[in-house]
């Protein structure tokens, strides 16, 4: 027996119908964005270099990751990136080399998701600086564990990449590691800070 109610073309819209329409609109929108992006190509920040010969990150992923890493680390990072002292995509690619294949796939998928999650047509890497910060913050504090997890991954990869470079050390006031090997210039071992002990400290 057929339910008349379900086949009546003139019945009023119900909640489930609105959900279906919403899903269809979002799906179409995402498809449109991907199509536009495939024509326009990836959108690295204007004038920014991408390292050649990446093994695990395609140019598009490298551009997305670089934009996210710069936004994550802070304003000083952008200058280091522009003058070639910091290549976050290269470091991320090296890190991916050490991961399992399914993890690499997850990272690439997360980058795609992150890029496509903005409402505008530009994707994350095409947003202005303030909009990028807002977008990152919304992922950082999201009620969805998946979004917080992606933020954590981008944060860890981006920040560790920057702070492993001399450009990062300059920002931090870090004199560099205290090295034994003569092939590097480094500080001599031993404490450079002396202080008086409070007698109460055992």
């Amino acid at each position, binding site marked *: 027996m057929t339910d008349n109610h379900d086949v009546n073309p003139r019945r009023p819209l119900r909640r489930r119908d609105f959900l279906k329409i919403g899903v269809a609109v979002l799906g179409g929108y995402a498809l449109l964005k991907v199509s536009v992006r495939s024509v326009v190509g990836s959108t690295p920040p204007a004038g920014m270099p991408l390292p050649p010969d990446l093994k695990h990150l395609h140019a598009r992923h490298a551009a997305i990751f670089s934009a996210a890493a710069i936004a994550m680390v802070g304003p000083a990072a952008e200058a280091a990136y522009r003058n070639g002292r910091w290549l976050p995509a290269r470091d991320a690619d090296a890190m991916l080399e050490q991961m399992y294949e399914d993890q690499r796939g997850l990272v690439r998928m997360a980058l795609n998701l992150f890029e496509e999650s903005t409402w505008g047509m530009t994707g994350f890497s095409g947003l202005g600086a303030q909009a990028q910060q807002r977008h990152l913050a919304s992922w950082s504090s999201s009620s969805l564990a998946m979004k917080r997890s992606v933020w954590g991954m981008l944060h860890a990869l981006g920040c560790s990449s920057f702070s492993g470079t001399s450009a990062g050390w300059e920002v931090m006031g870090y004199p560099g590691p205290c090295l034994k090997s003569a092939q590097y210039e480094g500080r001599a071992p031993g404490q450079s800070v002396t202080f008086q002990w409070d007698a109460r*400290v055992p």
Partner: protein
Amino acid sequence: MANVERCKAIVIGSGAGGAPVAARLAEAWGDGVVLLEAGPHFQAPDFTQIEREMMPKLYAGAGTQATEDGSVAILQASCVGGTTVVNDALCLRPPPELEPRWKALGAEVSLQSLAPYVAQVERELGVEQIPQAMTNRANYLVGLGAARLGWKGERMHHNAAGCPECGLRHLGCAYDTKRSMNLTFVPRAVRAGARLKPSTKVERLVSNAGGWRVLCADMEFEAEHVVVAAGVVQTPMLLLKSGIPAGQGFQMHLQTLAWGDFDDPVDGFNGIPMAYSVLEFSDVYGHTGPGYMIEGVSTQALGFSVQPQAQGALHEEILRRYRYLAGAMMVLRASTRGTIRVGPGDRPRIDFPLEAHDLQRVLPYYQRATEMFMAAGARRVLLPHRQAHFVTKPPTDLEIGPGRTFFYTAHPFGGACRGGPTVDAVGRVKGQRNLWVLDASAFPEAPGVNPQIIICSVALEGAERLLSEAA
């Protein structure tokens, strides 16, 4: 056909569990002992002391190993000497509370019978209390804040007498002063005749006429006795791949941080990174606190930068305060029990759904750490939490949970717990002949203190038991 080597005993893993076992067995059986290590064998000149170079070489998964939901990073080394190569060289004795707690979980343990092994390990590792003159300013400030609040604490012991204080213990000791397994029990095993095989990962164990076939990628071994001591993640993984039930009861000391921000430079990157311990809130050594220690900790640049959960201009501000920060680490005996399974492509799949009881003790830690640093004269305190960064008063309304707070562990345990479904009360694998688990994966419960000495001495005692049974 793979190369086949025959031997009396094989020890899989050369860290704090495997190295002492290999040394003791080799003293009895000489070159009948083979010590297999999945990671490479580094020497002092290999430790370049550059974080971005050494982290991927030394750490499992290049330092990216984590629980499945990404909420807790799990730091373990993969090289000859295991995690003792990259640890902070802290040496704490088994607390008296360990014996009744482990016995209640079905493990056979007696601190009295363990004592001679503890003494032997301490001698081999040259354990001493970290001298006052070697305590850096960051650790001193932790001690100062605790002392001003009347909290009990002390300078810890380490196995790095004569340390040149380069601050890079986590990257392998370039000076050969940290007496990690690669410089102590592994050479002792080799001197006694053991055959050390680095970069040799075991794929599977197969029972074979009362003994074992040990299958590696391009080699095969046949042994009468096998001791698995591949570390808390890889030991259960190997058992599982060999068709032996394992992976239950994974635990850890849950770790997070807080930093006092001082007016004058602290420069914690100088000197010994971890030297001072506040015991007031622990539940060991006679204390009856909620179960966490507070340990002074300093981190070099790369390691530090991922810990505060900030972004953009705030992240940069935090980086610019790096020289002025003194760190303190929570070492919480977590009650959560997780599982380890074999994931796609042999990837460890570690599920660890943090229980409310554990999360509820994190906010009190942040509160105590804030009080401590403010008492020491800090202008404010930095927390690794996405909702709160700098605070001047103990926070009261933070939502603690995965993806909000920076958690990690360098102290995983379990997965093949004594008294559990995998091994018996002393470490024999149930239902299998001549197969033992003698590393921290057999711990029935996290000990509540930095575990290096406990792992070594429990393993040595297990080796002695194996020898007496074999005789």
